Structures are given as structure tokens and as C-alpha cells.
């Protein structure tokens, strides 16, 4: 088991390096001169040249990459010119806000998605299955940002149950209750699509598993139907559901960008969109690498969970 984790960690190293290469290459493709972007179009050529030298942009691309990678390894992602603060500080602050939002949405979609999928499969062609199937189709078809906007209209504007946007009240907020009130709508809106996808895949996996011979064996032993479904069948189905959870976590993180825009959530998605529109390249670069790195680590955890569940892949 320990050996498997070590092996999995080692295999993540080339992926992480690959991510830095991809990000760096894409950023290097950006047309125009970062120094001009920083200093504005009225900058003098001397100033541009000086800044280029300071940023190391006069060197060949390969050595620029290694300098950047070296700094990255020391936790130095550079400075954001637009915000005039270290990229890492900004990224950490914004990412923790995103993590709260995406984490809540992920737990929500995993739990409800799996439960709905199991119920749907166990009651195949019954009314519960039909209701869930319709809900799933609606869920995977609705743009999350549109759903979020409609929720604001209903729950915040019409019913006045929840605040319109933000993470905390500007005056007098800041406790957990305040956070949860602000979190409810965006987390729900963000989880809907992934819930649909997970429910649909869980249903398919359960139907596949329920036809297997070992389910017949369990029934032949006299195991009760509840245990057959929620024990034997769900456990086997999780082998195909867990990788989907890993992929859906990426989609939840992605969807957070839209939801942060709609609900004015101070997360990293909004930061990235602003940075792109302002051409704050170092901030984009740092943000993308940081989030991708975290996602790689998350996927290692998913794989470890998978290997705990399925002894066949440990060897």
C-alpha cells in the first residue's frame, strides 16, 4: 500500500513538469511585449528595454523557462504588475476562497449524485428513476451561470432569503453562519451539472454491476436486497465512479470561474479572468500553474482512494 502511494507520487513528477512546460509555452506564445503592457503604450523604448532585462525577457526561451522554474520551486511566482503585490500571495488568498466554494459544491454533488444514481438504478423504470432521469437531463443542460442568475432573482430578490452576492457581509459579517448564507446559492448552482453527470454515471455503473454473477451469488446466499444494492453492488460500482469523481472535481473547479463572476465571489477564477483582460501575464501564469498543481495532488488522492477500494490495482 505504502509502495503504491510512493509509486503514484513519483509518477506525478513528470506530469507536474509537463504542466509547467505547457503553461510556459502557451504564455510565451502571447503576442506583444509584456513590458509594453506593463508600462503602457506611452513608455519610452529605454524603459521597455530596461524592464525586459529586469524580467529576464531578453534571454533565450529555454533559459527563461529554467529561471522561472527555479523561482517556482522556491515559491516565487513573480509580482503582479496590475495589483503590485507578489503573485503567490494573491493566488493563495483567492484560491482559498475558491476552495471553500468548490469544496462545498463537490461534496454536495458527490453525495447527492451517487445517492440519486443508486436509487435510480435500483428502481429502474419506476417513478423515482423517471423523476431522477428528467432532473439529470435538466441539470446537465442548464448553464450554471444562468442557473445562478435565476437563483439570485428568486431567493435573493424575490424571496429575500439569502444575500445577493459576495462571501461575507461587508459590515458585521465574517462568522461561519454568514459564510454559509453566502455560500448556499453559489455552491448549489455550481454543483448542479456535476451532480447530473455523477448520478447518470453511477446509474449506468450500478446497472452494469447488478447484472454481474457475483450479485446473483450474494442473492443466492440469502443476502437481503438493501445490502445487495448499497453494499455489494455500490462497492463494485464505486470502482468506476471514483475516477469520474476525479474528473468532475476538475469540472467543478472550472465551473467555479462562472459562478464567481455571477456571485461576485472573491475566488481565483475571477482573478484569472481579470488578469487575462488586463494582460497580467505573470498572474495568469502563476494562477494556472498553482491550480493545476493542486488538481494533480487531488488526483493522486483519488487514485489512492481507488487503490484502497480495489485490491486488484495495488500490484
Amino acid at each position: 500500500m505504502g509502495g503504491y502511494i510512493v509509486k503514484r507520487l513519483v509518477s506525478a513528477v513528470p506530469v507536474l513538469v509537463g504542466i509547467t512546460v505547457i503553461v510556459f509555452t502557451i504564455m510565451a506564445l502571447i503576442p506583444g511585449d509584456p513590458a509594453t503592457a506593463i508600462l503602457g503604450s506611452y513608455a519610452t523604448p529605454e524603459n521597455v528595454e530596461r524592464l525586459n532585462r529586469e524580467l529576464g525577457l531578453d534571454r533565450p526561451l529555454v533559459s527563461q523557462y529554467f529561471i522561472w522554474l527555479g523561482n517556482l520551486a522556491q515559491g516565487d511566482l513573480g509580482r503582479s504588475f496590475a495589483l503590485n503585490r507578489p503573485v503567490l500571495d494573491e493566488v493563495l488568498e483567492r484560491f482559498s476562497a475558491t476552495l471553500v466554494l468548490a469544496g462545498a459544491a463537490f461534496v454536495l454533488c458527490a453525495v447527492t449524485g451517487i445517492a440519486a444514481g443508486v436509487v435510480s438504478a435500483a428502481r429502474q423504470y419506476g417513478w423515482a428513476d423517471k423523476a431522477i432521469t428528467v432532473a439529470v437531463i435538466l441539470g446537465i443542460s442548464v448553464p450554471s451561470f444562468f442557473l445562478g442568475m435565476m437563483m439570485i432573482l428568486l431567493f435573493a430578490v424575490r424571496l429575500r432569503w439569502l444575500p445577493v452576492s459576495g462571501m461575507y457581509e461587508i459590515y458585521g459579517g465574517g462568522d461561519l453562519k454568514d459564510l454559509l448564507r453566502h455560500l448556499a446559492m453559489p455552491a448549489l448552482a455550481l454543483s448542479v451539472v456535476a451532480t447530473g453527470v455523477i448520478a447518470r454515471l453511477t446509474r449506468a455503473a450500478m446497472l452494469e454491476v447488478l447484472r454481474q454473477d457475483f450479485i446473483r451469488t450474494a442473492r443466492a446466499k440469502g443476502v437481503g436486497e438493501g445490502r445487495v444494492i448499497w453494499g455489494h453492488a455500490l462497492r463494485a460500482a464505486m470502482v468506476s465512479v471514483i475516477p469520474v469523481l476525479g474528473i468532475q472535481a476538475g469540472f467543478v473547479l472550472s465551473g467555479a470561474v462562472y459562478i464567481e463572476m455571477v456571485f461576485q465571489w472573491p475566488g481565483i477564477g475571477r482573478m484569472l479572468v481579470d488578469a487575462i483582460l488586463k494582460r497580467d501575464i505573470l498572474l495568469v501564469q502563476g494562477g494556472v500553474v498553482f491550480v493545476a498543481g493542486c488538481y494533480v495532488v487531488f488526483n493522486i488522492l483519488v487514485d489512492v482512494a481507488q487503490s484502497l477500494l480495489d485490491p486488484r490495482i495495488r500490484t
Partner: protein
Amino acid sequence: MRLFLTLLARNRLAVFGAAVLAFVVLVVLLAPLLPLADPDVTSTGDRFLRPLGGGPLLGTDHLGRDLLSRLVWGTRLSLAVGVAAAVLAGSIGAAIGVVAGYFGGSIDNVVMRGVDMLMAFPYILLALAIVAALGPGLMNALIAVAAVNVPFFARNIRGITVGIAHKEFVDAARLAGMGHGRILISEIVPNVLPVVVVAMSTTIGWMILETAGLSFLGLGSQPPQADLGSMLGEARAALITAPHTSVVPGVMILLIVMSINLLGDGVRDALDPRLRSGALSRPMAATLVDRAGVPEPKGAGLLSIEDLRTEFRVGPRRYKAVGGVSLSLAPGECVGLIGESGSGKSVTALSVMGLVASPPGVITGGAVRLEGEDLIGAPYGRLRSLRGDRVAYIFQDPLATLHPLYRVGDQLAEAIRVHHPVSRAEAGARAVKLLADVRIPNAEARARAFPHELSGGMRQRVGIAMALANEPEIIIADEPTTALDVTVQAQILSLLDDLRRKRGLAILFITHDFGVVGQLCDRVAVMYAGRIVEEGRTQEVLSAPAHPYTKRLIACVPELGGGRRRLEAIPGLPPAVDALPAGCAFAPRCAKADAACRAGEIALAGTGRKLRCLKPEVIA
């Protein structure tokens, strides 16, 4: 193709999706011809007109532009972009996947590492990075969305290609002199293509959502041109004051994505042969029963199967797998039920405790009595309490029949604990003892093993131990040695024989092997096309078969020690059980059959030695 369309038409949701989509596509295609206002003409005096308020049908937006016109043109753009992105991503991804999957080895390794790397990004990061590099714009958003989805297609299609590339027909094509290029084009691609098309059609909706998302963020289509996403993005500022400007494009996205998803699902289901045959149904806890009457209890015996009928209902067809089987089992007796594939022997065995997969299986008649108690009509709770406790099963393939994720000791302990209130520790100890009873060496350590860590023979011993767990009176063994090698089969058979003599077990032994029956069983019943055609003491039936089918089938089986020779064969094939002939089912293959044999029902006659034949072989 006709079948496909009929199946699709039967799916109401898919038809609804197709209708909505067809209407939307028609409208946007005709957009230049329709009497619509110019979508880009602003009129600041007419800002935020409400829909159906006498002005433009759907009102106006924050610049006073006609919303209906903008909606039609925006939908046109969104649809085109979505379809283009899906086709682009699908074809590039599929090409990569097919090549990697077919060639395997280091090409596959390198390509899939690259794919893994791209999939290590949450997709929006990559899309944002690409848009950042190329600059905002609808075309660039399209490229970003397509590029981000290529790895998903590549991985998916690679998996399918690997499956096909290992099929024997690909080897056969190679032996027939085809090169790699030709094999790819004529063997692999035709088999992958339907999957690619389905994958593309089901992702178009997703692509529309993603490009709309980028436009919503202001990174896609740039003003004044608008797709649905940017319409929503622009409307967001006035969400509270003029909600209709958000609702109109939002509902449109929902509508087209939903109709595409419904249609895509319909297409996928109609193409899936498994769904067509009902093979994707979930088997219920017990087989459905739909019988007109219950036959009077006849014989004694521990277990008595009386005129049992089980059929499979697939669409309008009814496959009569078991067509009136009567068989009894006395305490301590071993009865063999022998037949070729499709003869109904396994279905008979599974019907006893309601384990036939249902749907599509239905028990349509007869009774199964355990010491007089009818099991067919028994409520599920009663059936469950008897399963594994008084009647236990051993199945064919022990790798498939043991749960792959539970330790074998736990699976045994569970079998005990569902029927007896014993502690976990005690059940575990009993499990170890059971493993020792079936002669598994080092039972304590093996109890902690997972099924895949054991050999086939050991796994089948676990299967037997599980059947013995609650000391049942009856064991139903459904081809328990068919999947095993001959030397291991001999070990398992002699174990079963020992156990039944020591414990006085009654065994119903399902097999297709006369040699096995001859060595193990006291009595044997021969099945053909869902019915017993002959029954009697094993030695009598095997040495002097009375039914022409039994006689000819035994003659077909080569016996070891006969040397090189020509083998007997029975011409023709068994009849399909959804189109059984009148009279004797074997008549079309029988040399002795005449008009009487084909005329009507022939009864299974006799006591002790029973026979269903008008022209029996002469018994010497």
C-alpha cells in the same frame, strides 16, 4: 437503419428533443430570410422594453436592440460554434485515440502521457490560457474549447480501439495479408466510427455550454456580434432591473442543449444492441412470476419441480427456455441434469430459488416444492430466508461469481451471518474451518485473500465452502467445473462426491458432460429444447439410451482411449426456443421421425425410467 429509426421513434423524449432541435435549426437557417429587425441597430430611447408589451415581441436589451432578432442570430452562432468544436475535437481526438490504441507500445505510451498531462488541468484553466495567448474572440474560444476536449475523445476512443485491436478478426486480417493502414481503415475504423459519432453528438450540447461560458466571461464573441453566452454576459448587469434580457438567452441555451442531449441519448440507446435485447436491465431480487394456476402437489421427495415453465420476454418475442420440466430430488441423492447450450438446464436450476434474471425472465407456470412448500409463489422474504440456508448454489465461473472487492473469508462469514445471529469473530472462525473442510491448504491465510489472488481451482473451492456454510440440505451446482482445467476438475469432483456422502447432501448437478454425470450422479435427466426427453438411473441411461437424441448425443462424445477415428455427428441445429416445432423438438434432426412425431404433444411417460418418444431405441 430502418430498425434504428423505429427504435429512436419509440423513445418519446428523444422525439421531443428532435422536434425542438429541428424547429430551432430551421429557424436559424432561415434567419436571413425571416422578417427580423437588424440585431445590431441600437436605439437608446427604447432600452429595456418588456416582452409582449406591444413593441418588439421579446422586448429590447440595454442598447434598445431587438431581442428576438438577437436571439435568432445568437442561437445561429452558438449552434454553429458548438457543432464545429465537437466535430473538430471529435475527429482529432478520435484519430489520436485510434492510432495510439491500435499500435500500442511506445507510441501509445508517449501519446497517452501527453493526454494525461492535458487532462491534469481543470479544463477551464487550459481554455483560459489558450484564450489568453490567442486573445479574446469567438474563433479563439472555439479553438480553445475544441483543444481542451481533444484529450477526452482521445482517451475514450483509445480504450475502445484497444478492445477492437485485440479481437481475433484483426489477427485474421493480418494473416490474410493486410498491412497496418488497411487494417486501420477497413477493420478498426468501421467498428469505432459509431462510437465516435455518438460521442460527438452527445458532446455538442456540452460544447455549446462551454463556448457560451467563455463568451459570458467576455472572452468569446466580441460586441456587437453576439452569441447566446455574450448576450447573457451583457444582460447580467441589469439582472435585477430587466430580468427578461437574461431569461431570454438563458432559456434558449437550456432548450437547445437539452434537446441535443435528449436526442443524443436517444441515438446512443438506439444504437446499443444490449439495450435492445433488454440485457441492460437490472435483475430484480427474485424472478417475476406470472402463472395461471398452481399444479397439484404430486410426488414426495425433498425437492420437487413440477411442470416448471420459464420464459424470456424480449419485446414481443417469448423464448420458452423451460417448457414444462418435472424432476424430483430425494434426500442425499445426486441428480444430473444434462443438455447442450440453450437446452434450458441452467434456467431450470436458477428458477428453483427465483434467481433467473428478471426482466426478461418470467416463470409462467408450474411449482417448485421444498418439502411440500411451494417456492415459486413464496413471498420474497421467505425465499430469501431459504436461499443459502436450505438450498445453496455453486456457479460456473468462480472468478465472476465471487465479489472481487471482498476478502473470501468475509464473503463466507457474510453467508453465515445473514442466516445466523453470530458474532463477527465467530463467523470468521467458522469461515476458516469451512475453507479447511474443502481442503484449502493454509486456510487461515487464504481467508484474508481476495478472489483474484487465488487460482481457479481454489476459487471454486471457496464457492463450494460458501454453499456449505449453513449446512443446506440441497446444493444446486450449475456447471461447477466447466471453467476449470481437467486435472483441477477431477479434484473438485472428488471433493464434491466426498462431501455429499459425508454430509448426506442432495445435489442437482447441471452439466453438459456425460463423463462427469457418469462418475458423480445417481440419476440423470436429459434436456433438449427446454424439456426433459429422458430420465432414469445413470448407468441405465448411459449404457442403454432409449431416446434417439440421448443415443446420438452420447455417440458424439469422443472417449479417451478410442484412438484416431471418425466421430459421430448429429446433423442440423437445435430449434430456436422462440419458434419450437409442434410435436417432438428433435424430430427435424431425427432419422426415425415420422408424421406422428411432428403432429402433437408427446408426454414424458413411465415411472422411474421416463421417456418422451414415440419411437424409442430398442433396449437390449
